[in-house]
């Protein structure tokens, strides 16, 4: 379980997260929605310890991410996929995926490489295992990014606007993979702009606005009168649908 | 004066050496600036043969040790041309030529930094090549070149130390003399190094200030 209580985070004078409580249990797919600048990405960056929190507590399977020793354990349990892929440019797709299993989990290199190829096959990239990131399209890079996160066999997958940098066709490639993962029971925290997709795969929707969590509802409820009763949510949904 | 000890006069000696170093630095930089810019203009006008020759000589000077250039001028020229070349003359010829080569390279890339569209626009207005060079390219190229030029000058200041090898009484030569007389190498070379360091910092500082002024001049100041 990922448990977030009373999370506060500011950058200088700007408060980005202003007291967030959220729990993500195994098997859930929680989509985090909200307009740009609402603090969605910062939330993910707090969970994986890339940002230090100002107040509050985040635990991943009871490991407190604010403690360096426990952060290492917490990070082993969660995998992050980034908006801009952040692949290692000097390594092939397979090497990108196998690096952390070899170095962190001490999996023998041969085994890790074989696993990497198996993962790449699952996302339809078995032909590109030995290609370098610069030789891949955006959608292909992001699929490698997903494999890299999955290779660590994480209990939780953290997805930070993973399709924002992709054109619609590539977005579809990536989303279909995520849909498969959701069906397979992977726990996910999904920060996104893809409302319709979030609706189709999520068990729950969390809605952030100006650093506050103003809705945390099961998916059907969020998209029913209950969600629409919240002015900010209604406004957001109508605006996003118009776009 | 007991042989081996430092005397107050040594300080004067050091400052004299520094003066010689700086004087040669400034004069050869100015000569190098004129020659290097001239070479760049030759290239800009694509003067046949001369442009290629200039590029080749600059390449040769940039890619060979200054010490060897210095030996060629100081030992080689007198033997070859049967002329007299004093250490100071050799130093001025060598350092000027070396600076010119590097300034040529900076000037060429500064000229090339000015967009081709601007040149075409100027040509459409009927400006001559010389007018384009003076009115359009030169001001922009100067602003572009000042940064790399400052880096070069800091480097050329240090290069002057090599002329001590052919006997010019510069700061390094004074260091040599004091080193031999006092047998206190750490002290002597630290003092010499410190003086060079301060001079280098002053050059870098002056360059930065000059650049700021130049940029302030070209920057948009509003209406």
């Amino acid at each position: 379980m990922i448990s977030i209580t009373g999370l506060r985070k500011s950058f200088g004078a700007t408060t980005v997260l202003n007291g967030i409580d959220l729990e993500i249990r195994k098997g859930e797919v929680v989509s985090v929605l909200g307009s740009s600048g609402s603090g969605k990405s910062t939330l993910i960056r707090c969970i994986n310890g890339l940002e230090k929190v100002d107040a509050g507590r985040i635990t991943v399977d009871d490991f407190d991410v604010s403690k360096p020793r426990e952060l290492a354990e917490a990070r082993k349990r969660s995998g992050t996929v980034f908006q801009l892929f952040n692949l290692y440019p000097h390594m092939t797709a397979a090497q990108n995926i196998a690096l952390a299993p070899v170095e962190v989990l001490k999996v023998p290199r041969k085994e890790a490489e074989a696993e990497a190829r198996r993962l790449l096959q699952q996302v339809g990239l078995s032909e590109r295992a030995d290609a370098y990131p610069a030789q891949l399209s955006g959608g292909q890079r992001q699929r490698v990014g997903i494999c890299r996160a999955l290779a660590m066999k994480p209990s939780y997958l953290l997805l930070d606007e993973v399709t924002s940098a992709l054109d619609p066709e590539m977005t579809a490639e990536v989303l279909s993979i995520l849909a498969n993962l959701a069906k397979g029971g992977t726990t996910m925290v999904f920060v996104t702009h893809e409302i319709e997709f979030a609706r189709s795969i999520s068990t729950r929707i969390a809605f952030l606005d100006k650093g506050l969590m103003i809705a945390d509802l099961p998916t059907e409820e969020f998209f029913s009168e209950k969600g629409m009763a919240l002015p900010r949510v209604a406004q957001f949904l109508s605006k996003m649908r118009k776009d | 004066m007991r042989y081996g000890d430092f005397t107050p006069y040594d300080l004067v000696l050091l400052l004299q050496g520094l003066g010689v170093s700086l004087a040669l630095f400034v004069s050869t930089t100015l000569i190098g600036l004129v020659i290097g810019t001239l070479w760049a203009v030759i290239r800009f006008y694509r003067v046949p043969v001369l442009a290629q020759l200039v590029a080749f000589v600059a390449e040769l000077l940039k890619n060979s040790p200054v010490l060897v250039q210095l030996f060629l001028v100081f030992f080689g020229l007198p033997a070859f041309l049967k002329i007299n070349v004093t250490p100071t003359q050799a130093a001025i010829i060598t350092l000027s030529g070396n600076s010119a080569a590097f300034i040529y390279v900076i000037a060429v890339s500064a000229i090339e930094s000015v967009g081709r569209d601007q040149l075409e626009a100027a040509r459409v207005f009927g400006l001559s090549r010389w007018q384009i060079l003076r009115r359009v390219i030169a001001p922009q190229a100067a602003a572009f070149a000042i940064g790399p030029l400052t880096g070069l000058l800091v480097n050329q200041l240090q290069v002057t130390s090599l002329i001590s090898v052919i006997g010019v009484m510069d700061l390094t030569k004074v260091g040599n003399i004091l080193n031999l007389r006092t047998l206190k190498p750490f002290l002597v070379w630290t003092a010499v190094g410190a003086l060079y360091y301060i001079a280098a910092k002053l050059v870098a500082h002056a360059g930065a200030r000059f650049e700021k002024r130049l940029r302030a001049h070209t920057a948009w100041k509003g209406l």
Partner: protein
Amino acid sequence: MKFDLSIIAKHIPFLLEGAWLTFQACLLAIIGSLVFGLLVAAARTSASPLLNRLSAIYVDIFRNIPFIVQLFFFYFGLPEIGIYIDAFTTGVIAMSVAGGAFTSDVVRSGILAIDPGIIEAAQVSGLKKSTIFRKIVMPIALRASVRPLGSVFINLILTSSILSTITLNELTGSAKIVASQTFRPFEVYFVLLVAYAALTWFVSILIGMLHRHLNRNQAEGAV
């Protein structure tokens, strides 16, 4: 006097011996510069303010003092504190220390140019700091630094001529001897100048090849 290169012919084996010494000194100094440079670059980009400060001071000092002064500092200074090493070793040490300052600057900017997102990806995947440095930061920074590092190393080759001033008969030192034996300094130093230029030209071609080889998979759209 006519330009006559044939006189040098019989001295070529002797000059080649000098060239061999230059080659050894440069190779060792390049290795030394890389070792110093990488360590200092690591210190300069580390989270420790003290290491930051110390490494910045090292770079600042050795970049702003002429190499010949540094060389004399070591050559005359080390025996004073009881360290007796030969001219060759002294030269290699001095070149490594000076070259290290320049190398660290290049590597440092290579490190600072890395997309922070790439480092974050490595961090969240649980890699240790040392692993990230070895497997991610260094390979990326060094690939990006091949060309500027090449310039540093070419400069080092040119700088090695200064070792002739501490009695080391490397290429320039040997040429001095040949010049005084043949009484043909112009021819000798001219050949020497061309030889150095050819050598650095050759090295720069090698560096270009290395750069293309190491970055062959990094170009966008390359398949």
